[in-house]
């Protein structure tokens, strides 16, 4: 589908991409990873010709992309960036409809697309379409950023550290959403990250780059078991074995969580979620003990003005004790439908929260020292 053939790029005399050759299959989720400055963004931008290589060829579906009109090429490739890049002068609807409008879709068609896409991520049209980006939380903005890239149904989507600036819970949720969308819509995605947890979670194939070259291109399992280079092991290490090291849930949890008393009003809680940029609140009783969780979806779907969030809580999230083995939390995380586990103290007050990201990170730190992000 996408084929790089000896692609090189220099700035002055410094090579940034050095004879890069690799191939991406139709429907594949490929993650480019590597140390900062290794050429990930440059590689991505050569695909939609925001950057032109000095040498080598790139083919999409067998066609040399330098033979295509760059403007038309880009309209057929979705593009999501870390800074989100929603146009602040346009509403959510106008932002999502940018490419369909460039492609001269009739109004009823692009409106229907905006409707469907917003439904798909649980952001109802009536409530969100006419807002400006600055009225949304960071997580919601990047959802719209992703929808904008999907709007004209391009077969290929490029994502450059799209979740790098989001908090861990929101990042986890968006990672799941994008993976789900990709499976459902069968897109070919090229995704840049410098976060190994994210790469392992998302990728069909990981491309590990260093100084403009590919060190290894392999499936997550393969890379985990047989890293081809010490730099790669340094990025993630060898096998993870949590049983032998006595790690507890308390060791791997994050302690900064957003808690709210059960008598909080629905609307106020939505505001709180927006301002803290999270999708879920941990609800506590008057005596500080854990009561349950409430998601922004619950609040939107069932909340009414004046209602207290205590009436809407669920116990969907698995719960572990701080002293429990981390393995237990790990298993709970893998089997649960939610993307996190609540950690409680002995007196049932909330100690923290374990997400897939915090789990992986904490294990990495214990095994290989500081995991840089």
């Amino acid at each position, binding site marked *: 589908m996408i084929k790089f053939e000896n692609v090189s790029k220099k700035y002055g005399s410094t090579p940034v991409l050095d004879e890069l050759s690799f191939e991406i299959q139709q429907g594949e989720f490929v993650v480019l990873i590597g140390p900062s400055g290794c050429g990930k963004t440059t590689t991505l931008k050569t695909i939609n010709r925001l950057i032109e290589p000095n040498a080598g060829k790139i083919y999409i579906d067998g066609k040399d992309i330098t033979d295509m009109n760059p403007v038309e090429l880009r309209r057929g490739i979705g593009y999501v960036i870390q800074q989100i890049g929603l*146009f602040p*002068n346009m509403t959510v609807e106008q932002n999502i409809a940018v490419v369909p409008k460039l492609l001269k879709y009739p109004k009823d068609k692009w409106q229907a697309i905006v409707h469907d896409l917003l439904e798909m991520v649980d952001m109802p049209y009536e409530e969100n379409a006419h807002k400006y980006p600055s009225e949304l939380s960071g997580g919601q903005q990047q959802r719209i950023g992703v929808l904008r890239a999907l709007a004209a149904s391009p077969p290929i989507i490029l994502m450059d550290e799209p979740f790098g600036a989001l908090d861990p819970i929101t990042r986890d949720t968006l990672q799941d959403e994008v993976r789900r969308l990709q499976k459902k819509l069968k897109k070919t995605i090229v995704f840049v990250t410098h976060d190994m947890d994210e790469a392992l979670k998302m990728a069909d194939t990981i491309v590990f780059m260093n100084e403009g070259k590919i060190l290894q291109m392999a499936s997550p399992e393969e890379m985990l078991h047989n890293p081809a280079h010490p730099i790669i092991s340094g990025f993630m290490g060898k096998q993870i074995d949590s049983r032998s090291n006595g790690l507890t849930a308390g060791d791997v949890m994050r302690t900064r969580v957003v808690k709210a008393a059960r008598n909080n009003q629905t609307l106020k809680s939505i505001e709180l979620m927006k301002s803290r940029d999270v999708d879920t609140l941990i609800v506590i009783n008057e005596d500080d003990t854990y009561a349950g969780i409430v998601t922004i979806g619950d609040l939107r779907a069932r909340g009414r003005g004046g209602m207290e969030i205590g009436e809407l809580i669920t116990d969907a999230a698995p719960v572990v004790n701080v002293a429990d083995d981390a393995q237990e939390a790990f298993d709970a995380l893998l089997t649960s439908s939610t993307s996190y586990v609540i950690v409680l103290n002995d007196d049932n007050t909330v100690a923290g929260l374990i997400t897939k990201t915090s789990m992986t990170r904490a294990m990495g730190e214990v095994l290989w020292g500081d995991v840089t992000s």
Partner: protein
Amino acid sequence: MNMFSLTLEHMYIVFIAVAIAVVLGVFLGVIAYWIRYLDSIILWITEIIQTIPSLALLALLMIVFGLGNTTIIVGLVLYALMPIARNTYIGLQDVEPHLKDAARGMGMTKLQRLVKVELPLSFPLIFSGIKIATVNSLSVAVMGVLIGAGGLGFPVYRGIQTNSLTLILSGAIPVVLMALIFDYIMSRIERRLTLRASDGRK
């Protein structure tokens, strides 16, 4: 002497001049932004014009355009170019690079990027240039009387000739009032624009 119609004429002259200057100034700002090696030349020329004393500029223009409103309008346009062209140029330059990247990555052409993203995001700064140009023009337009144009220069000039403070003030006060009112209203609009657009700029 009908002060009301003189005031109207004064505003009319300024309005026409600023309208033309907006079109020309934004155009020059865009050209300077698009064509990298022209930027210093364009900005330099508009700045040079600013430094020519108004009397000298008007005298020169009079040779070409003769006596009357046209000459003062041309003069005002030339003076108004600098703040508008410069602010347009700076505004376009300062749009967040990642927004320009996003616009390019979506497949917008150069003109589409300008019209749909870059100009709207620069508008607060362009508007502030228009405000400066308007307020300046209101006072410079008084000079128009020297080259046979209408407006509030007339009572001021007659006042000087006849040594009549009342006459001078009857022309000067409306000019000052207009300048203050325009400055106040346009500053408020500018503030609101800037607040709204602040997240699209560096």
